[in-house]
């Protein structure tokens, strides 16, 4: 067969953050290139896939866009469990959302997959006039916690693709190929820790 059967590497990615910071908007911008001024709030978790072609490989993200409202907090582990990457989103016009983002990062570092790649995304960068969280503050926090950081705007598409591509680059590429792909199902009963073979933390 002439075709090379290199299948893309599948990675589970979860979006976390307070309600209305723009998690769904980021995903929809990334996957469909769309943006809606009024985005219905997510009640549950939306599942989408998107491949990212890197120079040497193709990464397929299985994206879980979760509900941000606090009342659903207890259900979040269901989605970040086994995730290879997480985007923790806050709204640059809300200090509360930044504080919440920090607590998500803590929770992920404590209870998430030990090799999880975490990216902090300060969304709504188009609303510079209403800014409450300075990028330096967030960047410093990210550096201290060894996670990625980027300011994004789902509305203007600024840094959205870049964010996902950066994450894709950081993910370990020696994923076992025999692992069944397309496992969109959340595991309910057995909380298993998907220890990735490659010891690659947010710093590599």
């Amino acid at each position, binding site marked *: 067969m002439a075709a090379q059967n290199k299948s893309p590497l599948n990675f589970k990615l979860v979006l976390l953050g307070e309600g209305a910071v723009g998690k769904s908007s980021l995903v929809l911008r990334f996957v469909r290139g769309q943006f809606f001024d009024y985005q219905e709030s997510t009640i549950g978790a939306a599942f989408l896939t998107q491949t990212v072609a890197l120079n040497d490989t193709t990464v397929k993200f299985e994206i879980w866009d979760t*509900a941000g409202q606090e009342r659903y907090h207890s259900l979040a582990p269901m989605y970040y469990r086994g995730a290879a990457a997480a985007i923790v989103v806050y709204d640059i016009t809300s200090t509360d959302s930044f504080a919440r983002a920090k607590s998500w990062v803590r929770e992920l570092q404590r209870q998430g997959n030990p090799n999880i790649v975490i990216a902090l995304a300060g969304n709504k960068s188009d609303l510079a006039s209403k800014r409450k969280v300075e990028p330096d503050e967030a960047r410093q926090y990210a550096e201290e916690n060894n996670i990625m950081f980027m300011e994004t705007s789902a509305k203007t598409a600024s840094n959205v693709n870049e964010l996902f591509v950066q994450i894709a680059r950081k993910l370990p590429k020696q994923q076992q190929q025999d692992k069944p792909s397309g496992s969109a199902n959340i595991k309910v009963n057995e909380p298993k820790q998907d220890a990735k073979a490659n010891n690659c933390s947010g710093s590599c």
Partner: protein
Amino acid sequence: MKTTLEDRVHKIISSEDSCRAIIEVRKTKNSHPRVIAVICPLDSTSHTECALFTFKSRVFSSKLMIRNIVPILMDFKAELLGDGQFEISFQKKNKLKKVGYVCQDVAFLGSFLQTLLNAQQIASSCKFDTLSVATGKSHAWVLARYSEEDQAIKHVYNIIQMNVTGKLSTQDGFSRTASGANAQLSIDPIIVSFLTGAARSEWIHRQLMQREDEFTELRPVSVKICSWNVGAVQGPVSASQLQQWLGKDNDCDLISVGLQEVVKLNTNALMVKESSSESRAWLEAISSAIGVPDKYMVLVSRQYVGIYHFLAARRELLVNGVIRDVQCKAAGCGILGQFGNKGAISIRATVYNSGICFVCSHLAAGKTQVAAESGGSDLHQLSSSSLSSNDGSSIGPDGGNYSEYYPTDVPATIEGHDIIFWYGDLNYRIEAGRQRVLELIQGGSLEELYNLDQLFQQRMEGNVFLGYKETRPNFLPTYKYDAGTDDYDTSEKQRAPAWCDRILWNCKRGSCKQEHYARHELTASDHRPVSAKFNLEVTRVLTDKLSQVGEQVSRSLDHMDNQCTPNVELDIKSINFYDVHYRCTQKQSAMLRNTGQVFVHYRFILDFLKENSAKRWLSIEPRYGLLMPGESRSITFKVRVGDEAARVLRGIKQELQETLVLQVEGGNTLFVSITARCLATAYGRGLDELVTHRYPIRYSGIHVDGKSGKVMPLPKEVWRLAGAIFERGLKDDNIFLKYGEPKELLEIRECVDTGAPFADHLAPASFAAALIQLLRSLPNPVIPPEVRVECVKQHQSKERCFRILSQMPPINLSVLVYLVSLLRELLKHREENKLSPETLALIFSAVLMYPETVDLSVDDPSSEGELMTISDDIEPRADLTKEQAILLHLLRSDG
């Protein structure tokens, strides 16, 4: 004159087609004879596309009729079963169809099956499959020429329909259908959603291949092929002579030189495989003749016994990285198929993005080649031999984004290449005697001579070099000369002259035009050297454009993936049950609709609920199931607080908020908020807890008097219910044996829980039922299990039973005493209420000391009805149980 089978077939089939093999068969020994034949078109572009025709003889006529046409594809099989029986199998309507035949003429059968197998091997190497038929990429001639043969054509149509409608369902069906050439975006998403892993890659690959012209361009490449059987001449010939053959001022991009018999082929030589002074000398001579290293660079110089193969490329091409992945492999097919007296050296290279393969071979000589097709089998052996060699350089492909989907990898076999040159001393002779050949040569009848050429004949019959081309040599046979002269063999053997030295090519992608084909008058050997020049157009991938197209293709697949994500909608996002009463079922419904394009398997998950309590009071029907696209289903959410739930809920605030997870396999999840106000009730609580509440349970949250340490002698709920029976039911007919009214029961329970007075209309039987319900909702019975066990042991002794019972906890004892006094009072009115001590003992033994093993507190929130009284369950029994006996002691006692 009797017509042959072949003539009869040729009368039926198109004049553009030829019959390659034919045989008369029967399905069984006694059935009518059929004729089956391997047919292929005559024209060179499609003559590899064979089909198996089945003909039926007409009655009273020698004329045949086409009955069936089966394209010979990759999956075609023919198997000899012995005794003249054989079986062919192929895919039909996506099933493996097998047809068995018997042939009486076993002598013909062998060669027929060989032809079939050859055709199948060609189909494999050309990758003919149902898809290629369906898309018209192969076997288009069948439809074009035989579409009137309605019976026959059905099979071909079946293939096409299957592929177009995408109804293939077997393991390979998905990938094939999904990658259908005309299937691009209109493809059924259900099928695409199964594309994962390798199938997905192949889909992208095939989509890219369809749009190849968007990201590729054709680049001209010139190639010179030179071949000479040097007959082991001692040392290379002079430089000027070499240049006469190889060309003086070469401008070709690639020059391939193949020599045969560079060493004497004695037994000793068979051992010397890799290198010799001869080959080194040839390398030097050829290099200097063509201008290495100024103009050309040597890519490969390789000897394999008698064969020497040399490939050089223009410097610029190498410097610019145009030529990559040069690999070389030698294969012997001489004695025992291993030794190298005959064989080939193949060199492959990727030029721009096309795979080009150069095969220099020295095949077995003699007429036997034709008879036994040994030349043919040599070729099969060689062309299917693996090329995955470890010698030669290998340079990785560009780091282009989608290049991995473009076949820049090295094909595994010779036949996998885009353009193949096959040349050397192929050793085919002319089918005529020496005298005749010489006459034709002298007469200048080269065309007639060529028609007698075995290679030409074998190729036309489709036995060898399928897909290869050769222009008719307009030069004299190159063999056999007396070395050093221009005379054909004058030795004793008097060999007939022949075109042993040939250059063939096979162009599968791109284009290849021969500019010249000539022999050269170098007389050192008994062969004359030959050369040919080709102008190729090969594919070059424009990496940037490939990335663009690749991203589009990938996005379209992602888009389909996401469209194929199972999706449901529930018409409500939250459910509020407001007031939930003990043992009162409440239901609410919601519509679940599959809004996606694929079937959905949904499931409500309760495991994530806080406190895990909702599992005890909430049920969902149906909790899981399958929904087809567009299908809706009504989901019923039901709450019912039973004893267990009441017990679990008693410590919790009454406002309950839970989130149900509605999970869709492979897709989104939805959260459904459930809100309920579970009204506090005395039911389900223990006696020791009840006595701490001085105020009605419903308000005990407000009056936190229970914590003051003061306890009541008797739960006020027992006291109130028993009191109501004292007041209203002593004379009631069959009280405790009648059903309570559900509505009244609810009302009574509400009064008990809220402290409201009982209304006058309430029937005594309802109070009795409410009392029994309360006693049975206790987590522990009034007479605790350990006490019951002791009493049962002593059940014959009234005194001992009393003694044991008197040592119960004071609350239990006072409840027991209070209840016994109520029962005794009832028995005083047995005239009216028709109760007997035995009946009451039976009922109350079950109420007051239900064993642990019978878990009466099990709540199934999905259960509908309400058990009215315990007497529903109690079957009167002739013999008294031990528990009943204990109760009877109590009822009959005066103490």
